């Protein structure tokens, strides 16, 4: 618990010291999503249809973009060895890192998503659903991304590898996340989608930190 709180607080403090860097994924999210009206054309019907998917895909890519430095800096300066010294500390480190990543780059995406939805002409009743789906979905991305970042630690071109490892794993989250808003559009209840997304989140909460911890152990050895 000590390790979790210490790492979480330190990561937030480091992000605060480098505010502009921490905001880059969010800026990417907004810019990438606002390219779609320019590329697809300004037809409100089309935009409304693709809006949930666009927001979700951009959130997914933005989350991946902020993944490579997650463990790389700690690995390079020797902090990771210190953190993993106690047996079992890896789990706390993995959980704290994922939590900090979500707070820094996931939460702003959740807040920005309804805004983007509005921009793309999403009807008002779908905005809360989009918000909730990202609220459940972005922690999944942080947890899965942590596994990818730990597995690729110390490799060159780790950034690309993380994307290739994590994107296939994130497909279910993308389907149910974007599907929730689309279900509302089709006049159905979004709750099955959101329930499945919640189940995915629980599975990742249980499974991702041990996998990350094991990968970190290997990287340090």
């Amino acid at each position, binding site marked *: 618990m000590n390790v979790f709180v210490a790492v979480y607080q*330190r990561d937030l403090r480091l992000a605060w010291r*480098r505010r502009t860097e921490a905001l880059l994924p969010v800026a990417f999210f907004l810019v990438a999503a606002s390219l779609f009206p320019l590329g697809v054309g300004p037809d409100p019907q089309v935009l409304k249809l693709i809006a949930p998917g666009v927001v979700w895909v951009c959130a997914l890519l933005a989350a991946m973009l902020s993944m490579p430095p997650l463990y790389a800096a700690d690995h390079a*300066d*020797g902090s990771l*060895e*210190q953190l993993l*010294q106690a047996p079992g500390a890896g789990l706390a480190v993995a959980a704290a890192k994922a939590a900090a990543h979500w707070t820094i780059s996931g939460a702003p995406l959740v807040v920005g998503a309804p805004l983007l939805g509005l921009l793309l002409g999403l009807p008002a009743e779908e905005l809360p659903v989009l918000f909730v789906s990202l609220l459940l979905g972005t922690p999944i991305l942080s947890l899965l991304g942590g596994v990818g970042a730990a597995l690729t630690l110390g490799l060159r071109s780790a950034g690309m590898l993380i994307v290739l490892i994590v994107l296939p794993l994130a497909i279910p989250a993308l389907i149910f996340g974007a599907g929730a808003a689309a279900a509302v559009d089709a006049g159905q209840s979004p709750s099955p989608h959101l329930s499945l997304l919640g189940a995915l989140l629980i599975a990742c909460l249980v499974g991702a930190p041990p996998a990350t911890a094991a990968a970190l152990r290997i990287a340090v050895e």
Partner: protein
Amino acid sequence: MNATPLNGTPAATTPSPPPLPSLQLVDVACRRGVRILFSGLNETLAPGELLWLRGGNGRGKTSLLRLVAGLAAPEHGQVLWDGAPARRSGRFAGELVYIAHANALKDDLTALESLAFLARVHGRDASAPALRAALARLGLAGRERTPVRSLSQGLRRRVALARLALETVPALWVLDEPFDALDVAGTATLHALLAAHRARGGSVLLTSHHLHLDAQAASAGFRVLDLDLLPRDAGVAA
């Protein structure tokens, strides 16, 4: 020089307090990639002892320190602490101080924040007075609020070593080139910290290229372990 009883044997005949734990390396071999760096290493580090690890570049000094610190597993043999495998002992890992060649400091944090983080992660006293006292001990008074990025190499090393001034238990210190980048005053402070640790029964395993230790080795009872003298299975691992 030190009257503390050796551990490893049952303490039936020793009076209380209970004997302090000691580190034992039993027939340890270390592999790095496909090369066996050294093998057949048997060594006991008794309480209060300081073992100076020597050897040429690439002979596995740092690898041995990492084995002892539990960050890597030996290719063969065992690392024992208090007679039990060190790697699985939560108490060993909790009390061990391992300071690697990298300082584990963050450029964006201040000296005080960096030390506070390391102290908290390792479950040490992270109260502000204790941290300030530790930094002052290493000659960093007045620099607590300086970001690590604007500290020189020597000062960074001092921040990393300030952890030693927080220690109170007779555990094991594993130090990789602790004298690197330190000036004369810093070296003297480190020697004082090492002596205090040994006086309370703690043991130290360190590497250093610094020749001034030669004089210390004789006068302060440093024991020397030279990896160059160990059998080196020059071939490739089986």
